[in-house]
């Protein structure tokens, strides 16, 4: 009992600073071989009151710490980092991208003739899934009782007959490029209120579509397969909608995020151990480092490539040598667009939708 230090001899904690282990728990998810820990985000403003640390976050702090870094972007995909936001916000954006950003999709199919082996309802469903190259911001939502007009409906027709010509079979498979846009509206005879389209003017005369005709985003999607003598004749009406109603209106193939991985070597690893660690990692995160005098060390050169397979912390003693973590406030966000809008526009739209939600729930509070 002699060498047990007195509490009074312990050094004082600096005021306004968290002890290292709490700071780690606050900002990192620690991924051990069996399970991750400290997965929750500590948001309560008074969580560290006992240490004299104010955990509240105000607008000014947010503005100071928030950063965006675009890693790559093209017409279809983008990956960017958002630093300094909470999982709640990142998840809100993901949810909005998947379910609440509007696009155009085929909703009504009027089948005049279908002698193919594919049934009418299956064919209609397949047509609905085709991504349509049209900016949804130029359109309005169509209510059920509303007549179709040039501001809320896009009309396509599909008219294919499969024929045999000598050894060749024409139109053996119906592709999405065979959908023909009807800018003047429906060509079918007046029948019911839903089928009739009252276009004030041709859509191809509108400035937003004059230069870019509306068509399927991809020309080579197989809609149906035919044999000689079979035919399909139909008309489809595409309207604006959101992914919440049906996934065909979802503007993204996927929108996902992950926390940035962080790998810390808690011991100096040399020679055999260094080689073993490099070989352990299937994602090739580690590199051999020359320490001079023929000794080999190891460093985590590409932590971003880490898939969190946890191979590096498996096995005897490895959990003591390597600490695998994720940063709680650093999100790697990936958006894969279906093509109707570029991914950066989709994300801006998602932010706008969230702002809109905020304003509605404050304005409509009596």
């Amino acid at each position, binding site marked *: 009992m002699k060498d047990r230090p007195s509490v009074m001899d312990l050094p004082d904690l600096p005021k306004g600073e968290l002890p290292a282990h709490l700071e780690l728990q606050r900002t990192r998810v620690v991924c051990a071989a069996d399970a991750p820990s400290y997965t929750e985000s500590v948001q309560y*403003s008074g969580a560290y009151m006992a240490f004299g640390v104010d955990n509240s976050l105000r607008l000014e702090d947010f503005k100071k710490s928030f950063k965006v870094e675009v890693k790559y972007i093209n017409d279809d995909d983008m990956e960017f980092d958002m630093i300094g936001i909470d999982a709640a916000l990142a998840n809100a954006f993901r949810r909005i991208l998947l379910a609440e950003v509007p696009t155009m999709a085929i909703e009504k199919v009027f089948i005049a003739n279908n002698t193919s082996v594919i049934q009418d309802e299956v064919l209609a469903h397949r047509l609905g899934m085709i991504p349509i190259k049209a900016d949804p911001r130029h359109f309005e939502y169509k209510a059920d009782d509303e007549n179709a007009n040039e501001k809320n409906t896009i009309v396509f027709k599909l008219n294919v007959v499969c024929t045999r010509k000598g050894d060749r079979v024409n139109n053996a498979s119906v592709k999405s490029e065979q959908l023909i846009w009807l800018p003047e509206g429906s060509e079918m005879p007046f029948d019911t209120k839903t089928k009739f389209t009252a276009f004030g003017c041709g859509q191809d005369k509108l400035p937003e579509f004059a230069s870019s005709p509306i068509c399927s985003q991809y020309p080579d999607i197989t809609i149906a397969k035919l044999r000689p003598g079979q035919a399909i004749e139909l008309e489809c009406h595409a309207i604006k909608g959101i992914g919440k109603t049906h996934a065909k209106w979802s503007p993204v193939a996927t929108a996902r995020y992950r926390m940035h991985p962080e790998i810390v070597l808690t011991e100096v690893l040399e020679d055999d151990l260094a080689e073993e660690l490099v070989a352990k990692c299937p994602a090739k995160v580690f590199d051999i480092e020359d320490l001079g005098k023929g000794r080999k060390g190891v460093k985590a050169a590409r932590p971003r490539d880490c898939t969190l397979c946890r191979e590096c912390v498996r096995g005897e003693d490895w959990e003591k040598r390597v600490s695998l973590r994720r940063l709680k406030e650093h999100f790697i966000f990936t958006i894969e667009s279906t093509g109707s809008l570029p991914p950066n526009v989709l994300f801006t739209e998602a932010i706008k939708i969230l702002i809109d939600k905020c304003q509605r729930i404050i304005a409509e509070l009596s």
Partner: protein
Amino acid sequence: MNAPDRYERFVVPEGMKKVAYERDMKIMNAATFTIQREDHTIGNVIRMQLHRDPSVLFAGYRLPHPLQYKLVIKIQTTSQSSPMQAYNLAVTDLDKELDHLKQVFQEEIAQKQSEYY
């Protein structure tokens, strides 16, 4: 058939308030906000924002039932504030944060695109 209309998930029925406020009769400075036709998307974000406020003692949200398209937020504050005040502050703050976020994002995109072309 008897399937509910698809739009029932996001169109507030006529005569129903989007946001309803109800004060808790048993606890001081506590209240319940019921928001119609909203879900985790906004619920979790508001809860996060409320927790950052030093005057909030308790904040939580729940979706009572998957087929009732509404969100319930419960807030309790210190006597210096009120649930209504905390709610207003959280949502307006969030609004400003998002404005800032949008601006930063667009600046970054503009810069990235100018590098490409």
